[in-house]
C-alpha cells in the first residue's frame, strides 16, 4: 500500500531562517510527488510537483524540493522563510490518486 510520512508536525522558525520539511513515501513503480500548502483561512494549493526528469523541482514563492529515489524522500526547502510562509504544508504522492501525509504546521516568527 502506498503511504506518505511527514516527520515534523510543528515547526517554529524566525524570519530569514532556512526551512527543510521532511517527507518520505513508500511506493512501487511510477510515482508522482507533490507539496501542497494551506494558508490560514484558505484552500489547499499546489506548491510544486515532481513527475520525472530533474529531481530538483522549483515551485512558487521560492520553494524547492528534491526527489531522492534511494532514500524515498521528497523534502521541501526554502533558503529564507518569511512571516507570510506561516501555513500548513502537506506532502503527497500517488499515480491515480494522491495520498497525503499528516501535514506540518509552520509558524514563522517576525
Amino acid at each position: 500500500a502506498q503511504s506518505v510520512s511527514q516527520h515534523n508536525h510543528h515547526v517554529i522558525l524566525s524570519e530569514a531562517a532556512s526551512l527543510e520539511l521532511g517527507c518520505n513515501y513508500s511506493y512501487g513503480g511510477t510515482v508522482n510527488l507533490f507539496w501542497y500548502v494551506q494558508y490560514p483561512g484558505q484552500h489547499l494549493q499546489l506548491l510544486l510537483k515532481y513527475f520525472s526528469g530533474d529531481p530538483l523541482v522549483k515551485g512558487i514563492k521560492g520553494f524547492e524540493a528534491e526527489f531522492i529515489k534511494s532514500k524515498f524522500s521528497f523534502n521541501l526547502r526554502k533558503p529564507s522563510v518569511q512571516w507570510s510562509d506561516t501555513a500548513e504544508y502537506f506532502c503527497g504522492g500517488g499515480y491515480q490518486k494522491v495520498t497525503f501525509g499528516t501535514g506540518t504546521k509552520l509558524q514563522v516568527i517576525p
Partner: protein
Amino acid sequence: EAGVTQFPSHSVIEKGQTVTLRCDPISGHDNLYWYRRVMGKEIKFLLHFVKESKQDESGMPNNRFLAERTGGTYSTLKVQPAELEDSGVYFCASSQGGLRTGELFFGEGSRLTVL
C-alpha cells in the same frame, strides 16, 4: 474562473442524523475527488470520480457514506446516519486530466461536527 466550491462550509448535526455535502468542481474538470481530514491526522482519500463513474472508492469508510455525481457535474456526499467519528473536514478537489497531466484544485472544505 470560478474555483471548486463546497457547501455547506460548516454543518453541526446530532448523531443519527443525515447530512449531504455538495461539491461543484471547476467547469470542464472530469476528475473529482473527495478527501476527509480528521483533526490532526492525514488528509485521507475517500473516492475518485471520472465524469459520473466511480473510478476508485477504496477509501469510503463504510456503507453509511454515499457519493454521487449525476451528469458528471457536481457531486454530493451523503452521510446517513452520522456517527461521532465522522466529524472532520471534507475536501473536494477536481482536475482536468489525471495526475500526470495536472494538479488537484481544492475547495475550502466542509467542516462536519457530529454531536
